[in-house]
């Protein structure tokens, strides 16, 4: 095959993949330039503002600004800390509770109920009980992240092939090791699906937890700019959150793909 045709094909794939994104961005630019509405700045202006706010630092600081360190870094750190904490709790409880079929009738109703609590409604609760500090924010994010992971872990652990467990027992593997060596890997694809849902939730809860009584963080920046009618800043914050969400999801997917390659090969189907 000629090089020309090869690049032609790659170019086509790229157009299919990203063509619409570019087209929509262009459309957005044209429409906002035409409309001249103060609430709808052009995407170019938003990008420039994002650079000013967060990415125009010195090379020594990897081009990030002080604003990046105060607005973005603490937010992301809290989100990830809460996510990791909640994920660990969800996995541990799910593995243990999922192992006993008899527990299902007792465990599922309360789990389903707590899972259904609209998470923003809990923010004032956490605020009252733990106060407006980082501990409360991480606890809130962790609390929210537990449930999707727990539910997925429970269901996946219950569905682990009984012969696999029998194999563990037959070779004299102790129960704690069976959790680590059998239940955990067998349930991993579903656990990963739960963790992915929780990652999105962690960002939402991060923003929500920063709406109240804090001076920094992206959520605070967002709400402050809205209340003071800094339209451009607000759009920049929205775009930044979108970028973060997209990148975190991308990173997670890459990790998942690496760790769970066996699942795709085994079942011949993509990950859940």
């Amino acid at each position, binding site marked *: 095959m000629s090089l020309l045709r090869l690049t032609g094909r790659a170019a086509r794939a790229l157009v299919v993949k990203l063509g619409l994104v570019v087209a929509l961005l262009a459309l957005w630019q044209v429409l906002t330039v035409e409309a001249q509405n103060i609430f709808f700045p052009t995407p170019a202006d938003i990008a420039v503002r994002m650079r000013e706010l967060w990415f125009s630092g010195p090379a020594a600081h990897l081009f990030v600004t002080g604003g990046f360190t105060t607005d973005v870094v603490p937010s992301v750190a809290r989100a990830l800390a809460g996510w990791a904490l909640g994920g660990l709790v969800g996995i541990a409880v799910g593995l243990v509770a999922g192992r006993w079929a008899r527990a299902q009738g007792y465990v599922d109703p309360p789990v389903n109920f707590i899972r259904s609590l609209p998470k923003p409604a809990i923010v004032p609760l956490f605020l009252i009980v733990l106060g407006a500090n980082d501990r409360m924010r991480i606890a809130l994010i962790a609390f929210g992240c537990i449930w999707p992971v727990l539910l997925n872990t429970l269901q996946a652990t219950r569905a682990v*092939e009984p*012969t*696999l467990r*029998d*194999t563990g*027992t*037959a*070779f*004299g*593997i*102790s129960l704690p*090791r069976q959790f680590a*060596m*059998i239940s955990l*890997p*067998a349930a*991993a694809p579903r656990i990963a699906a739960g963790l992915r849902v929780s990652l999105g939730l962690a960002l939402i809860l991060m923003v929500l937890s920063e709406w109240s009584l804090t001076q920094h963080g992206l959520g605070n920046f967002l709400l402050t700019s809205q209340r003071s009618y800094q339209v451009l800043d607000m759009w920049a914050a929205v775009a930044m959150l979108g970028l973060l969400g997209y990148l975190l999801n991308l990173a997670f997917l890459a990790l998942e793909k690496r760790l769970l390659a*066996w*699942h795709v*090969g*085994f079942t011949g189907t993509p990950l859940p």
Partner: protein
Amino acid sequence: MTARLHLDEGTTSVSAALAVHNITHRYGPGGPAVVNGVTFEVARGELVSLVGPSGCGKTTLMKTISGLMQPTSGTVTAFGRPISGVPRELAIVFQDYSRSLFPWLRVRANVSFGLSGLGLERSERRTRVAESLAAVGLTGHEHKYPWELSGGMQQRVAIARALAYRPRILLMDEPFASVDAQTRAELEDLTLAVHREFGMTILFVTHDIDESVYLSHRVVVLKRSPGEVHAERVVDLPETRDQITTKADPRFVAQRAEVAGLIRDAALGSTRFSLHPTE
């Protein structure tokens, strides 16, 4: 090879590797007896086949014998010690290899899985895994995933895993039920070779009459609903067996016919209630 010793109820032969005494099993209280009063023994170094139609309770019996499941009543002893929980000297090859191998582990890790509870040195683990894989003819496939292998090769991995564990008793539950005829013949011969080489006691469950006679020193015939021992026959064939010559041997043909007859009798007489059908 040792013929079966006749035993009075309650006593176990000192020479027995495995003594199954009056095992009854029901799934759930009040459920029907899936296995009912099964008693038999396997002597040290013996290869015994347990043959019976599908659903007659062979897997259930296997699970209670291995200690994976507590029988509703009855006892199992391995080398004179009562079994509760799977004893160290016992390993199992399950019916469905695609469910008993870990899809997230490569062949080598699958084989060394069974060793992880033994607290062996790393080098010892390596040697055992390499030896077992060599014994089943899978050297060179260590880095593949099980699902990259054919069914027969997967079952070889399961056998290698059991071998690496160095059990004194090997339980095999219809291990070759889902492979093609050619592979099956190869795996049967592998089982015989392994039995010879490692000098284990093997209890081999199958629903295939040819297989039961071809492989074993003795055949225990089960009947269905409830699962009971219908008869036992010592197989009168030379110790070394061969797919072609043994199966053409008139003694093989006659004994296969006899076992087939026993199974048919068992099926016909299954409505008749009998506590001690064993000859």
